[in-house]
């Protein structure tokens, strides 16, 4: 018995694709519903956060109107109340930028060190140690910053203002230092360093090894390879990582609340005591605030939530795009 099967003769229609009907059992359907429900609870929580903050903040926001975003003072219990987040928002941004300016080069450098320079036995413990920085509670960073770092930075601050005081950010009017946005920035830098380092490390690790070795084989130095191959390849990933760090820095609460003495002035002088931070202000004021004050604080929280969520989402889009453009969709 020998059956030779040939392809269909001309005139016979091409095979018709069947719809695969896989009717799942009831248990399968129930399980899938459970799992999907859990997953979408995340979206539900994000929606509820916005909804409830908005509902609670609405009376305060309605009363204050757009002045909420441009006013400096915070007297929600006066009649009529006078309050706004302008100084706080600017201060939040200044602290975050100081933190980013310090953390980004250090994080990129340590990511490069771990990936390209460190001996094999050192790389893994190093990654663990950097991740450990993220595990230390914000509270402890704050205490360390307030009691240990702040006094020790006085000398540095004085030197900066003496020699570089012509640059506005280093100018001080009273030569009093400490509890400043500068100290906050350094502490927050330590806290956002791990996330920037881990995302950039991951992006750098995706550079094809052959490309790197190709650069070295052409007689390039290691720095040449880093500069011509790895950094250009990882650029959008670094941008995304920096934005993730920025998002974290904007929301940093307790450490800043402990260190900073908030004074409701918009000031570019980061070495002086004072400045502002939305999150820290909420934490500071909440325990003592009256009913109207708490509503105003929720309004500030709403602004913070919207800003950080937007920054985070844009950052994720940038990071994901830098991943998928390499054909590596997670």
């Amino acid at each position, binding site marked *: *018995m*020998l*059956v030779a*099967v040939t392809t269909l003769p001309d005139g016979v229609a091409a*095979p*018709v*694709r*069947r719809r695969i009907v*896989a009717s*799942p059992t009831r248990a399968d359907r129930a399980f899938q519903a459970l799992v999907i429900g859990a997953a979408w609870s995340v979206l539900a929580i994000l929606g509820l956060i916005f909804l409830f903050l908005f509902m609670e903040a609405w009376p305060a926001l309605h009363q204050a109107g757009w002045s909420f975003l441009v006013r400096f003072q915070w007297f929600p219990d006066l009649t009529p109340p006078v309050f706004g987040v302008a100084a706080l928002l600017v201060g939040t941004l200044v602290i975050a930028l100081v933190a980013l300016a310090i953390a980004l080069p250090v994080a990129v450098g340590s990511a490069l060190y771990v990936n390209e320079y460190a001996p094999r036995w050192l790389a893994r413990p190093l990654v663990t140690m950097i991740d450990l920085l993220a595990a230390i509670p914000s509270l402890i960073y704050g205490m360390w910053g307030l009691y240990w770092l702040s006094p020790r930075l006085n000398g540095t601050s004085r030197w900066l203002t003496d020699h570089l005081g012509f640059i506005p950010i280093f100018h001080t009017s009273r030569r009093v230092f400490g509890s400043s946005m500068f100290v906050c920035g350094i502490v927050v830098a330590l806290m956002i360093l791990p996330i920037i380092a881990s995302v950039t490390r991951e992006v750098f690790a995706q550079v094809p090894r052959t490309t790197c070795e190709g650069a070295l084989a052409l007689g390039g130095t290691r720095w040449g390879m880093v500069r011509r191959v790895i950094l250009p390849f990882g650029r959008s990933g670094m941008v995304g990582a920096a934005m993730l760090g920025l998002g974290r820095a904007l929301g940093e609460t307790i450490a800043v609340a402990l260190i900073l003495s908030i004074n409701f002035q918009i000031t570019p002088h980061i070495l002086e005591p004072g400045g502002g931070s939305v999150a820290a202000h909420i934490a500071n004021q909440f325990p003592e605030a009256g009913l109207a004050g708490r509503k105003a604080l929720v309004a500030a929280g709403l602004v913070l939530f919207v800003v950080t969520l937007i920054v985070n989402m844009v950052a994720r889009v940038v990071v994901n795009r830098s991943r998928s453009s390499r054909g590596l969709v997670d």
Partner: protein
Amino acid sequence: MNMTTTPAPPVSMIDPAVLPTGNGATLEARTVAAWFAEHQILDDISLAMPANSVTAIIGPSGCGKSTFLRVLNRMHELVPKSSLAGEVLLDGADVYGIGVRPAETRRHIGMVFQKPNPFPTMTIRENVLSGLKLAGIKNEGSNDDLVERCLDQAGLWREVKDRLGSAGGALSGGQQQRLCIARALAVSPRVLLMDEPCSALDPTSTLRIEETIRDIVGSVTIVIVTHNMQQAARVSDYTAFFLGDEGRPGTVVEFGPTSELFTAPNDPRTEDYINGRFG
């Protein structure tokens, strides 16, 4: 070392007569085609794989052998965006028919994979019984007897009977693969699909698996995909030669009794392939 042993006489207490013989079913593919997204892998495959026989599927890499196997027990549809045409009949009933559950089909048409993969969290005994638990089947008789029977059929009983409680992952590669065969047999499938079951194994283990295949074919229909033509010649009753070149979907070039296909192929391409001129 003498490796051409005759099958070891059964040492088990079970009377071989109790083994369900003739449990195998006829499996028939009718004008089967398969796609991944818009990429067609198989075209117009019609094969009848007779009950209680071994059918080998040979052919060069990328001709769709494995995909065909996965179409047979509805594993193909697990790949996102996959689709197919044609029918697969298990004793005359279309496994893709409306109302047929894939899980049910897969229980009747078992599968052994290229890489042995016993469940790492389970003991040897639990691995054998895992199918019952996973498919939600009640075992009529005693579990001990079932474990012994399946391990014995897979030729593993003598080696592991004293350590049924140890982890399946602790076995050698060949033993793991035989454990996977025992695991697949425990749910009494009517067809067993084997996707290059020996390609990750050493020659000695390969021969043991081949012995096992000959031992169990009395109770189950076997379809085996293999790269190794000697293996196809050794174990199979029928052989199908698949070919799909230059991006064209795979088709059956020739199908027939193994002895005829290897000694007197009809198609020159079959002859070229079995004589090692390509592939």
